[in-house]
């Protein structure tokens, strides 16, 4: 009965979502406060209904109810508890239910925290969010119901893909979905603003926290995925420009652009139309990401689902929301007047440059990702667009953007002073030039790595110099406002990330060796000994575990065999050091008896690789601090706004 109850709740949620949508939009149009409040109430209850539906699916996975199709296809009794729970969203149907749930939760949050936005804008935004939720539920119910039964029920299940049985990957999808679906709130606010025909500072103030939530969760989700790829896939890489990685990276770039343009719109009223457009495009890219990952249109390690009918349905959703949004934009945007009055050298211009850079970078990733699909559809020609393409196009674009980045904070709004900025930033420029010279002359690195490293140092030092300028003295640094720290953490993170990426990519070492137990190899100035190989039995796998000593420290690496799904995986051994990671992957043994078998061992030295993840973490921290700042301001403003609507 439980699964049927889940299906019933989902159907109920579908009706509720469209009621919320209809009420909200009608209330906004007729300026009916009572109906608006009703719409908000429906939104709040609907989140609870979907939460219950989702809890039912989790319980079906916990009990491993094989009569439910999605459980039988993705779970097994022997699976550890964490992965039984994570199995709920480790498949198409469950992840779509999660999409609906997150959308409903955001609708309820939007309904609960109107902040300082106008009544009708708020009603309309809640209404649009209801339509978004409703369309997603309709898709889930009609084309990928997680509650479908199997008759007769199979005796055993197929297990979750073992690569996904990992703590980082258990929380990677929820994070990404928070980000993807989080972008539906700026979208709803943009559509509501276009309906109102008015975009002002208050609108931009309302859109910023929602954008930040989406951007922070996307940052965390992408970083977790990247870190997982680094330690799980066994070759020490952290980014491959795989279409599925790009699918999450594009909304991230668009959200980063939106964060910055919304600041300009809030402070100065400028760029209003562009900010609206970015909000529509950002959600469009999130839907495109869902389409790319969930339709099976890509052949890649990540695309586990193949089903064209679903793909067409998601494309139809994309066309409906983005096409509809852009039509409304084309109709209403020319009426959005923007106040002017700033000089070419100003914070405004710097943020325009930021948006040019991020928008072109997003476009480049989009074209590189879709081009092979388009070409195949139109001409049947198969090509690959891989890392070499993105490295030579996206890389220089980011370098340009990052050269401009540290300058922006030094420029005042309306009228900046470049000479004053240079007076401070020259020290960052000297440091960057010094690092570049050292890289080229002493380390004999390639020229692009010297440039990348210089750009990273420039961004990092530039952000620190700005802190120094703002504080004036060491004593006053702690007294600087939180908003300043939010920006500084994010920009320092960008610098740290760039330094790590440049160093790791150009100075990594790798070596493959055939090792008998008891033998050693010299690698990257260390002595690596294969001490022993043992057989290990896990909860749902068997493994061969190699014990290495690197100089005097012990590292273990495994090859696992998951007996239910019949797939092997590698569990690498990583020894973190200050200068980088020693990374060991155990390969296959040669022919022969146990004592005489040589094992293929791949050794990597990944210098400063932790800077990459630390940099991304700092960016997320900066975003989270920014969220605290905006939440505090929201609390301060909420009281007067309520008073104003009451009179």
């Amino acid at each position, binding site marked *: 009965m439980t699964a049927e109850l889940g299906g019933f709740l989902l159907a109920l949620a579908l009706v509720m979502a469209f009621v919320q949508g209809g009420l909200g939009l009608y209330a906004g149009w007729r300026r009916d406060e009572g109906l608006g409040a009703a719409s908000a109430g429906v939104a709040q209850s609907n989140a609870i209904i979907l939460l219950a539906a989702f809890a039912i699916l989790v319980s079906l996975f916990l009990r491993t109810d094989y009569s439910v199709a999605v459980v039988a296809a993705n779970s097994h009794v022997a699976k550890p508890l964490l992965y039984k729970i994570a199995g709920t969203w480790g498949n198409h149907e469950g992840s779509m239910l999660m999409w609906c749930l997150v959308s409903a939760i955001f609708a309820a949050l939007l309904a609960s925290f109107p902040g300082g936005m106008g009544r009708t804008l708020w009603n309309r935004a809640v209404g649009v969010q209801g339509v978004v939720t409703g369309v997603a539920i309709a898709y889930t119910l009609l084309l990928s119901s997680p509650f479908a039964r199997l008759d007769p029920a199979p005796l055993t299940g197929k297990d979750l893909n073992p690569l996904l049985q990992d703590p980082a990957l258990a929380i990677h999808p929820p994070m990404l979905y928070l980000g993807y679906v989080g972008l539906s709130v700026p979208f709803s606010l943009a559509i509501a603003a276009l309906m109102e025909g008015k975009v002002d500072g208050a609108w931009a103030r309302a859109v910023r926290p929602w954008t930040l939530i989406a951007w922070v969760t996307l940052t965390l989700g992408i970083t977790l995925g990247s870190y997982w790829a680094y330690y799980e896939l066994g070759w020490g890489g952290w980014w491959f420009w795989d279409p599925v990685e790009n699918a999450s990276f594009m909304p991230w770039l668009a959200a980063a652009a939106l964060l910055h343009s919304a600041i300009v719109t809030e402070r100065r009223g400028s760029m209003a139309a562009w900010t609206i457009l970015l909000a529509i495009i950002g959600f469009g890219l999130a839907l495109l990401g869902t389409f790319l990952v969930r339709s099976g249109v890509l052949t890649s390690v990540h695309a586990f689902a193949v089903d064209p009918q679903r793909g067409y349905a998601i494309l139809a959703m994309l066309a409906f929301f983005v096409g509809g949004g852009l039509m409304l934009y084309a109709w209403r945007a020319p009426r959005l007047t923007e106040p002017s009055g700033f000089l070419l050298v100003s914070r405004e211009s710097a943020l325009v440059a930021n948006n040019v850079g991020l928008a072109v970078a997003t476009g480049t990733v989009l074209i590189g990702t879709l081009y092979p699909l388009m070409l195949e559809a139109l001409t049947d020609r198969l090509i690959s667009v891989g890392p070499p*393409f993105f490295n030579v196009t996206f890389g220089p674009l980011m370098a340009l953007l990052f050269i401009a980045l540290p300058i922006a904070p030094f420029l005042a709004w*309306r*009228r900046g002073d470049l000479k004053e900025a240079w007076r401070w930033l020259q020290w960052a420029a000297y440091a960057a030039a010094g690092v570049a010279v050292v890289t080229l002359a002493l380390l004999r690195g390639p020229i692009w790595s010297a440039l990348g490293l210089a750009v990273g140092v420039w961004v990092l030092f530039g952000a620190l110099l700005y802190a120094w300028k703002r504080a004036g003295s060491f004593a006053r640094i702690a007294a600087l406002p939180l908003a300043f720290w939010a920006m500084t953490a994010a920009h320092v993170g960008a610098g740290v990330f760039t330094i790590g990426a440049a160093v790791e990519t150009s100075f990594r070492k790798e070596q493959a060796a055939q090792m008998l137990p008891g033998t050693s190899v010299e690698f990257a100035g260390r002595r690596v000994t294969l001490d022993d190989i043992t057989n290990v039995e896990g909860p749902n796998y068997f493994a061969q575990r190699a014990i290495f000593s690197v100089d005097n420290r012990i590292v273990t690496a495994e090859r696992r065999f998951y007996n239910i799904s019949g797939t092997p995986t590698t569990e690498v051994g990583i020894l973190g050091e200050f200068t980088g990671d020693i990374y060991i992957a155990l390969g*296959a043994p040669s022919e022969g008896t146990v004592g005489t078998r040589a094992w293929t061992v791949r050794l990597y030295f990944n210098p400063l690789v932790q800077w990459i993840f630390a940099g991304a973490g700092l960016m997320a921290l900066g975003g989270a601090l920014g969220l605290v700042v905006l939440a505090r301001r929201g609390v301060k403003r909420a009281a007067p706004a309520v008073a104003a609507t009451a009179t």
Partner: protein
Amino acid sequence: MIRAALLALALTAGPAFAQTPAPTLAQEERARALDAEIRCVVCENEPISQSTAGMAGDMRALVRERIAAGDTDAEIRAFFADRYGDFVLLRPRASASTWALWGAPALLLAFAGVTAASLLRRRRTAGAAGEDLPAPEHDADR
């Protein structure tokens, strides 16, 4: 059961990852750069430099064979494209069907730059003609 699983582990694993390196260090460096640009044809979106599949090992050996035979990088790319199709090259070759791809980033940048410049230009003249120079506005210190 354990024995069967371990046997399966031995069988499913690919052959040795290492292949005989190219004779000189410079040649091996060239080979590694090429490995990263050539897609393993039996894997899911992996270059042969990363794949543990036997096929990838054969392809890496082939790269070193071509280098030893004196081929240039371009000739080796062409060799692989002739054999396995353009799909095998992660760096798409410039051709009638890829010029739009390679040209797109520069075109986008030019378009965005010109659009932004014209907007900024209008804004500046509007600001300067209307009133005096706008006063600078600094971020609040708390």
